[in-house]
């Protein structure tokens, strides 16, 4: 009698669990379809991508938004290459776990684990207090890039370490045996073999950062930007003007998520179409980046089977 009841539970429960999963999928699909339908009118309009924001909803576009997003993300990726990835390499490949350096390593490790759990808006306060007011970088592309790179740091460090950890010890021993220094080994073996995994981490981190709104709102990013930063490119050799680069870094900006936030907060319903359209663009960017990271990961797994 009891047996019958039990086996019935094993038929019913998977159905229940699968239904719960279906609820999640339909939630996600509803969100994507809702944003697409609401914004369709603007998504299909080419001038939406080439216009500045405007107080007339029908003329408003996301030109300064997506260019700002591009520049800020370029900055965030630059800082991640400079700090995040090397920090991950240090913790996984160089860390000795002995003596005074061992103590520092433990602190760095604990610190990065804790940073992963800090609410994003706190990074906005950090950037407002330090970069904007104490370093006087202002509400600039430089500040925004730095802020997002700090947000990306924990994800990048974790992924870099995982990618390096997958490389077997034999590779290192082999290199040392033929007289390679640590740096020789890292440059010729560790980096090439872990590059796929490290890039995957970078893309995943960037896909999270690209949609971040709260920290950038906190530093005081403007929502109405009807101009682009000056172009640092010139027609003469070396085709790039160093002094202009500084001007670009220090220029005010807006990014797609902030533009969306601004449009959602407007009372006029017409702006909601713009918000939905820009939201859909951002959503597609996120999907593409995650798909790319997924593809990279699969490829790396097949390429190196130790």
């Amino acid at each position, binding site marked *: 009698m009891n047996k019958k009841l039990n086996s019935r539970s094993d038929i019913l*429960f998977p159905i229940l669990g699968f239904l*719960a999963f279906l609820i999640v999928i339909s939630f996600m699909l509803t969100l994507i379809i809702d944003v697409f339908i609401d914004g369709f009118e603007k998504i299909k309009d080419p001038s939406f991508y080439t216009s500045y924001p405007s107080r007339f909803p029908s003329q408003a576009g996301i030109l300064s938004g997506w260019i700002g997003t591009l520049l800020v993300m370029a900055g965030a990726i630059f800082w991640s290459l400079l700090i995040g990835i090397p920090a991950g390499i240090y913790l996984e490949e*160089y860390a000795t776990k002995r003596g005074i350096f061992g103590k520092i390593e433990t602190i760095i490790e604990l610190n990065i684990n804790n940073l992963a*759990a800090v609410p*994003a808006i706190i990074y906005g306060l950090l950037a407002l207090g330090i970069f904007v007011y104490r370093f006087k970088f202002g509400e600039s592309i430089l500040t925004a890039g730095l802020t997002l790179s700090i947000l990306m740091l924990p994800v990048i460090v974790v992924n870099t370490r995982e990618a390096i950890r997958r490389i077997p010890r034999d590779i290192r021993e082999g290199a040392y045996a033929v007289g390679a220094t640590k740096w020789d080994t890292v440059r010729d073996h560790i980096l090439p073999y872990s590059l796929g995994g490290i890039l995957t981490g970078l893309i995943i981190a960037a896909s999270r950062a690209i949609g971040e709104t*709260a920290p950038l709102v906190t530093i005081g990013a403007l929502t109405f930007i009807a101009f682009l930063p000056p172009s640092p490119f010139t027609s003469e050799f070396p085709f790039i003007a160093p002094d202009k680069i500084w001007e670009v870094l220090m220029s005010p900006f807006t990014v797609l998520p902030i533009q969306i936030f601004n449009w959602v907060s407007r009372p006029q319903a017409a702006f909601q179409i713009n918000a939905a359209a820009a939201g859909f663009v951002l959503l597609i960017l996120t999907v593409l980046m995650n798909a790319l990271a997924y593809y990279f990961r699969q490829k790396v797994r097949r390429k190196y089977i130790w």
Partner: protein
Amino acid sequence: MFSSVAHKKFLDKLMLAVFFTAGFITIFITIGIVYVLLSDSIEFFKEVSIKEFLTEKEWTPVFATKKFGIWPLVAGTFMIAAIAVAVSIPLGLLIAIYLSEYASVRVKEIAKPIIEFLEAIPTVVYGYFTLLFVTPILQKIVPDLEAFNSLAPGIVLGFMILPYTASMAEDAMKGVPQRIREASYALGATKLRTAVTIVIPAAVSGIVAGFILGASRAIGETMVVAIAAGMYPNLTLDPREPIQTMTGYIVQVALGDLPFGSIEYLSIFAVGLALFVIAFVFNSIALWLRSRIREVY
């Protein structure tokens, strides 16, 4: 190839220094956070007593008579987090048990990235969806639900934190050794019975750690609540009314022009400090619980 041994050794030392510096710099992020939050909060508490901050029941920094009692913001924050957790835990547990105990490898391979994508969706898009889709639908079901409320953002956040409540719970349950399950099956227990009486108790610290991290994520989430919960500091337990969370207040003040050193500017750091402390406590509990997993087997 022609580089001398000395040159090689120098380069090796130099690169060690480069990598170490990169790692060391990251410590300054935390130092910077603590410094900014503390120094500006201390300035704030010179003008507003800590006693008022912790005992006053009104938060009216933009009114003529300014009152700085943080409870309305804390209450708003926790109410939304509580709704999120109430939605997320049953849904997450069902999915976790299904994926870990019943689903085929193929279903799992598809399901996990989908669930984890919930965290990748930009929060501002969630905000739009909450305000213009979820709230209007809920208004047809729930009487007297206002356009800004804590119910709709809470429900949406419940889905958003599923990567913690479902995915992390599944990871914890996957970590339970197969032989323990086999022993249970051998005694005649069904899969469900094994899951409920053997696997979940064995994985409980990992599962609860996921719940707590999810709650912590809901507490720190900003855009959904800033867009859909209103900007009204309101000490209430009614999920149909507009409220304001701690994060929502920071956004509201930051949207205006902040004169450096003004009381409004300083107040967001005091609120930020409180938020940081709450997040830190939640995460410490979660880390402690997770470290316990390894002791079981």
